[in-house]
């Protein structure tokens, strides 16, 4: 685990540093700019999907799915971050407590 923590941190610092050291025009290319802008969206949405529907290598529908649906509604109504997170936790925890979902 320390390998992941330290290698991850070193790479992320290097990326921040590289930006301060390279000539400006490299990242000014529209294609590169667009890819950099879209990368976090693709990765985070993939993480959300996996975190909601997957248990290791199996796709499952459990208490996380309704919890994410409720969180999506909260986001649509511009609820603050902490509310979205708590509402999702309460939904999944509640469904499990009453034995309505695994």
């Amino acid at each position, binding site marked *: 685990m320390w390998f*992941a923590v330290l290698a991850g941190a070193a790479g*992320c610092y290097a990326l*921040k540093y590289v*930006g301060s050291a390279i000539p400006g025009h490299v990242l000014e290319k529209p294609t590169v700019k667009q890819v*950099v802008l879209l990368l976090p969206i693709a990765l985070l949405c993939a993480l959300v999907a996996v975190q909601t529907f997957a248990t290791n290598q199996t796709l499952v529908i459990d208490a996380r799915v309704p919890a994410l649906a409720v969180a999506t509604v909260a986001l649509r109504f511009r609820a603050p971050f902490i509310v979205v997170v708590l509402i999702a936790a309460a939904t999944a925890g509640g469904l499990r407590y009453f034995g309505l979902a695994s």
Partner: protein
Amino acid sequence: MESTGTNWLTVRKEIIGNALSIGVAVAMYGVSFGALGTTTGLTIPQTMALSLLMFTGASQFTLVSTLASGGTALTAVIASWLMGTRNAAYSMRMTPILKTSGVGRLVAVQLTIDESTAMGLAQDETAYEGRASRLAFWATGLSVYVLWNLATFIGAVSVSAIGDPKTFGLDAAIAAGLFALVWPQIKSRIEIAVALGGALIALSLTPFVSPGIPVLAAALVAVIIGWTTGRRFL
């Protein structure tokens, strides 16, 4: 000169106030990150090391949740790097404004994240000989750094006391937290396509490849769509 001085004091106060409130808002994420770190098997020192050394929220969440879903250390590390690429663009934008060198540059680089860059760029670059931009960047960076780490610690310590995280729906909270993180970034049709494409690729690969790889594969969607659509604006 007299009036500029008085104005500067007002501007300075406002910038520092904004920097502190951003720090407090970010602390909410910090608590969740700390909690996530320790529920997914990292020790408290490892969770803290991520906030202190990596210090870029999206990469930290990515690394930890890739490990949590069973991904190898290597896939988790690569995913966190991909997530950190935008910081390179940020420090490139900020460096000429900050006019740092030596140790100052090394510290500024570490503080270069979404919030500090956004605040730095929100100021008029020419105002007060650039002092407004620089103060906004430094005040926000430092405020977020201190509060993010404090919040991580609180989250990490308080959750290690809880037993099975599923009982409290913490697994669902992680998904919801990540979704809340990406939600404001999805506006245009291209962004929606990337969001859906990334999610679909990840899910369709999940049964066939080892955990962690599906999320990395989703990066391809961003590269392909980014490359083709970015060209159109040349």
